[in-house]
């Protein structure tokens, strides 16, 4: 079951950061894209938001099943234990994120596909974005951050920022790929869109990457008691795996930014960059899978 459990966590986190990545791209990148292409980029953000929030909703449902299975006293009926679980702090957070995920799916579905539409359709973008951002606090209130006695004032905001930064980067990268795919289907070439969107995305990714590394280092300090614990505990070893994969993502991102973006108009066009971006996204999702394992592992358990 550990693999199934980790996949449930991956689906939840992937949905969460993809939904937030769509929202942050909608507000940080799309408004700076010029002309008609802006509408196409907003439509891509909406598609990514719908994919992310739907995955999040499925992940939230499976998360409850996983928690109930762990929680259940075998002498008590499932329904009775479900009521007890819902009455805990974890259950309260879960109810909030479930409502949030349902409303976010509906808001993304209703949001103006091209940024124009009616007042209500434009308001739906704001609702979806605020909720997607707010839901990024769920892991902080149900994970190791809230259990950090005495330093919650630091660990909870840091964990919240960590998830927001992951969304802006990894979710934002997915948004760039979807926007390019839509443009390629429409016009046969994605170079022009990438040439305009990538520098904007790189600015967001740089800040998000710095925040990710900073808040990640802080969480390591809070949860890993010593250097020895990095190697002697299961938590430490999973953390090392995560750090290794993050380094791979950073290198792939740097290659995209510094080497492949300037070659967009060269031989092969956008293809080398697209392929490398897909590699970066794939390894980033492996990081999310490892992160899902990490949050299930008590820090001091050998």
């Amino acid at each position: 079951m550990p693999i199934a459990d980790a996949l449930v966590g991956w689906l939840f986190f992937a949905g969460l950061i993809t939904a937030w990545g769509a929202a942050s791209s909608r507000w940080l990148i799309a408004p700076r894209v010029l002309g008609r292409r802006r509408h196409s980029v907003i439509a891509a953000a909406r598609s990514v938001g719908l994919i992310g929030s739907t995955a999040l909703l499925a992940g939230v449902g499976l998360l409850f099943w996983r928690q109930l299975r762990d929680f259940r006293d075998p002498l008590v009926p499932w329904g009775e234990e479900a009521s007890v679980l819902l009455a805990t702090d974890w259950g309260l957070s879960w109810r909030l994120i479930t409502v949030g995920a349902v409303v976010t799916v509906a808001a993304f579905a209703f949001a103006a596909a091209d940024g124009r539409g009616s007042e209500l359709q434009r308001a739906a973008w704001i609702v979806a974005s605020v909720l997607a951002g707010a839901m990024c606090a769920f892991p902080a209130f149900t994970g190791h951050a809230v259990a950090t006695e005495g330093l919650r004032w630091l660990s909870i905001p840091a964990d919240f920022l960590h998830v927001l930064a992951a969304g802006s980067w990894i979710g934002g990268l997915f948004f760039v790929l979807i926007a390019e795919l839509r443009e390629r289907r429409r016009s046969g070439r994605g170079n022009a869109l990438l040439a305009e969107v990538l520098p904007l995305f790189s600015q967001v990714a740089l800040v998000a990457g710095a925040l990710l590394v900073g808040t990640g280092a802080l969480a390591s300090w809070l949860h890993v008691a010593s250097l020895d614990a990095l190697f002697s505990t299961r938590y430490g070893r999973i953390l090392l795996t995560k750090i290794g994969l993050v380094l791979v993502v950073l290198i792939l991102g740097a290659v995209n930014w510094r080497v492949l973006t300037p070659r967009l108009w060269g031989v092969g066009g956008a293809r080398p960059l697209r392929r490398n971006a897909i590699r970066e996204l794939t390894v980033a999702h492996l990081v999310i899978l490892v992160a899902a394992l990490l949050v299930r592992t008590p820090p001091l358990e050998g």
Partner: protein
Amino acid sequence: MRVSRSAAASLAGCTLLLVLVLTGALDHLALHFSLSKSEPAAEAAVSPPEELRLWFTQAPQDKSTSIRLLAGDTLVETGPAIPDSEDDKVYSVAVERTLEQGAYNIAWRAMAADGHVVRGEIPFTVQVP
């Protein structure tokens, strides 16, 4: 570029923090949720207890704690698990009848603030003089 410079400064700060962490220059206490002690204690031989009492290393989530008393496979009736009014890391249940001599088991379960569900068993023996 301004963004690049601020990102580089942040990365440098993070690297410094990571180095401090890895060299152990920052000391802190990380606690893991578990049972620290119980009354009756594990493997103890005791006179019939009126209540079962558990001490945790951190406060469990409200309403998540379950404490059951078993004689073999049979459930012995107890009251609900109640937190201590002065210490939310301590939970107890009242034993609703006088236990007979024999072997018993306390099966407990609680959920930590971080959602980890922890459970265990505490075997003990009741001796009637």
